[in-house]
Structure formats: C-alpha cells, structure tokens
C-alpha cells in the first residue's frame, strides 16, 4: 500500500502536525519508503496467531481504590506556557 498527497495531508491533520504544501511530496516519499519496508509482513502466515498484548506473562496489577497523591497543583502548572491561578490558558474554544 502507498499513500497519495491527500492522504499525507489527512494523516498530518489527524496527528495535529501542520504541514505546508511544499513539504507534502517529500513526506509522501518518506512515508511510502517506510510502508514499502513493512510490506514484507504480508508474507507471514498469521492464521490463528494471537496478537501480543503483553510481552511478559504478568497480571495487570491493581491498587487500592484510595487517594494516594494530589494537592500539587502548583507543580502541575509549573511548566505551562500560559496559566491563570491553577488553570491552563488556551485560545477561545467556545464562541
């Protein structure tokens, strides 16, 4: 399978990465090189094979349903580019 220019623009938008028109041909070439490389997986017989969900045979650990962290709002916003009090600031989302 390979991707066309329209698909490249669609993927970029899904990935939330701005792509300018003159970058599209180059990206298309690189993505297609990667897709051509992974194409060889289609020759593997995977009939009846379970997809891997965990590389080590371990049970998902569960913890007590209790609050064991928190009260660190200052820490949470410490690195934010724009804040007001303990809130993150973003451009207006609701008109």
């Amino acid at each position, binding site marked *: 399978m390979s991707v066309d220019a329209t698909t490249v623009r669609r993927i970029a938008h899904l990935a939330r990465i701005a792509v300018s028109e003159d970058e599209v041909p180059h990206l298309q070439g690189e993505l297609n090189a*990667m897709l051509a490389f992974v194409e060889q997986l289609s020759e593997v017989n995977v009939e009846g094979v379970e997809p891997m969900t965990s590389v080590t045979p371990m049970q998902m650990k569960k913890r007590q349903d209790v609050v064991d962290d928190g009260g660190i709002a200052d820490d949470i916003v410490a690195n934010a580019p724009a804040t007001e009090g303990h809130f993150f600031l973003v451009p207006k989302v609701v008109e």
Partner: protein
Amino acid sequence: MTDLTSLTLAEARKGLADKTFTSLELTDAHLSAIEQARLLNAFVLETPDRARAMAREADAKLARGEAGPLAGIPLGIKDLFATKGVRTTACSKILGNFVPTYESTVTSQLWRDGAVMLGKLNNDEFAMGSANETSCFGPVGNPWRREGSNTTLVPGGSSGGSASAVAALLCMGATATDTGGSIRQPAAFTATVGIKPTYGRCSRWGIVAFASSLDQAGPIARSVRDAAMLLRSMAGHDPKDTTSADIAVPDYEAAIGKSVKGMKIGIPKEYRLDGMPAEIEKLWSEGAAWLRSAGAELVEVSLPHTKYALPAYYIVAPAEASSNLARYDGVRYGLRESAKNIIELYENTRASGFGAEVRRRVMIGTYVLSAGYYDAYYLRAQKVRTLIKKDFEDCFAKGVDAILTPATPSAAFGIGEKGGADPVEMYLNDIFTVTVNMAGLPGIAVPSGKDAQGLPLGLQLIGRPFEEETLFSLGEVIEQAAGRFTPARWW
C-alpha cells in the same frame, strides 16, 4: 596520583573506601574532563554545583561508614530521565525549558545509593534514532576515529551521549534507554558495555516515553562488572509502573567470574546476513570460540521470524509513539506557538517543536492506527511479534541458556553518512538488537574487537527473561578474552 577518570567504577569504589581519594576529587576530575571535551557535545547540561554538593555529601557518608553501594561515583544521566529541578528535554525543542518537579524512579535509586550527577547527556530526539543525529542540541562525536582519519563518526543512538561520555572518560557510567537497540548499538560503536534488561526489570516511571511496550532503562559502563553494579541500583519493583516486575533484584556483581561451564549457547543461523562484513563474521566465530574454551557448549539454533522483527517494530514503535507524544500539545508544558484557535495551536506547536524524524514517526504511527488500516498493519504486526517471541521460547525450551550474535551489522559511520535519502537505511542498524525488545528479553553488548580501520565492534548476548546474571557471567568471559579498548584522545 593516577588520572582518576581512567579508573573503572569498581576501582573507584575501592579507592573511595580506602580513602586514597575523595568523591570531591573524583568528581572534580570528571568535571574538568567534561569541560575539555565540549567538542564531543556529549553533555547537553552540566551540573557542576549539584555534582560537588552530592560529592561532599557522599564524602561525609563515606567518613561515617554509612556509604551506599555507589557512594561518591560520578555518573551522567541521559536527558530522557526526569531529574527534579534540573532541565529535562528528551533533546526535543518541544519540551523547551521543561524542569521536572519530580525525579524518575531509576535516577532516584542511583542517588539513594550515593551516586553523583555530573549532568544530562545528549540523545536522539525522544530516543528516535540510531546515530544521535536527531537531537535538537546537534550530533554527538564518537571518541573513536578511523585510523589515520580526522572524520568525526557518530557514537550510535539513541543513547549516543551516554556511550560517548563513558568511552571518553567523562563519567564513570551513564544511564541509557533501549527501545530497539539504543543501549547496545551505541555501546558497540564506542567499545563500552551496555545492557538492556528484561522488560519490567527497571521502572519506566519518570522516563520520557517513546514506545511503552518496548522501552527499558539500563546502564552503559566501562566494564561488565561496572554495568552489573549500576543495574543493581537501577532495577527493582516500582508501584508507580504497573509493568514493573515484582521480583527481587539479585546481586548481579556476584555473577561475575562464575563458571559458564556446561552452559548451552545458541548461534542463530538467521543472523548470518548476506553481505555481512567478513570482520563481523570473524568476530562472531571468535566470540563463540572464547565461550567454548570457557566450557560452554555451542549449538546452532533457528529463529525463523528474525527478518520480520524490524518491519514489525516500525509499525509497533511509531504507533505507540504517536499515542505517547499526543501529550505535547503546547498547553501543559514546553513550547507553544501562537495560533487563532486551539487546533492551530496544536498543529503549529507540534510542527515547529518536533524534528523531522519524530514528525515522520508520529505520522506513520497515526496512519497504521487509523480507521481501515489498523488490522492490516498494527494487528498484523502484533501477531508477528507473538511469533518472534515464540521463536525465542522454542529455543530456550531446548535448553539454550543464551544466544550469541553480533551487536551491529557494521562499525560506526560518519555524521550525515546514512539515512539521508531513505530513512530505512538508518533503521537497519538495529537489525540484530530489535528482536530482543520485541520479545522483552535481556541483551548485553560487550566490546569484542576492532575492524580493519581500528573501530570497535561488539557482540551481543541474549538471555532468558530475568536471567541477566547469565549475561554478566558470559559477558565477562568475552571481556577477559577480548581485552578492554580505550580511544586515543583527540578532542
């Protein structure tokens, strides 16, 4: 006094215990070596004040006889590990001036045991790369050069700063991470020892995530024993990482010098590639001969799905990366580009904050997870991964204790030499190491010889899950036979 930077970690530990020198002297020697080696670009942040304060504290503890196992030992930390109050960027512009308010579990355990932090080490952006060329701080120089040449070579990647700093005697050991070969490949390129432990052995908490089902932390060091000492402090169960294994950490150092007599070592025929340099083939046979003379039994084994590991990796890893890197949105931390609305804010921030390799992988990951393509790519790759793991399980079920392979398909290459036209050319560097991540197994790279141009080459040993001790025992046999390698100083 002999040059303190040329000691191994084990030798330094003895010198500190015997009061031959202090941690402050040892730390100062390394800080001055770092200053003189800025040409290598191995450190992206030097923390001399913190280093000296930690060294003084270690000296006080040593004097009181309360010293931990790594007391006073100066280390470098890959910039992927969050360090409290010290800028951590994953060498990406998008993290900008991020200063964590918390410490990664692995580094906090090193400080618990008395180690000293010299600074943060360069790496490929978000650990995506095999040459340390994708870092926003620029490439790292390998302390090794071809004989009679002034060309600067890459140290490998993604832990290129870690490998370069350890090889150039700028730190006694370094933390590193390995998602497809990022500890073992740079170790092989710089004649250092690097071990990627079993998935779950080290906590991933506080390490910038790349591909969570593959990422593991491990040390890069100057000897097998040093690597064993570091891993003992780095490993261990952490409730904050649900995939961290609740298994006691053994004294890895005790495995050094243990007999390997009667161990069964597999030589996988699928790792014999067409067009593989004769030197690597020769090194591989030599390694087998060394293990045989130490009493191990060599057997040919088959890992039939080996060739599919790298293509499957280039679906699984970008898919997980696209999901992990969704958090870099210009809202909660790091870079923010201006925009009229929230979608543009995300798109502009991520376009200017991520480098080309990261953008490419996030996009491929987004594509293979998108509606209509998930089954064809991602699901198929995860099935192939099951088969790759089964190959190893079948092999271990036949009594094989460890598998011996070359660490890399070539020695180090020049900056800018690979991957310019086709990204896949660079990806092939990890052909021998990536299988190990796909199967969650431990793997160690040990310096084993040099090529005709005088560049170091390494061998890899792959072990059963949680049997890192076997790798340390076997690795030391190779180290004893091959000797240690130090680059001639040019920087």
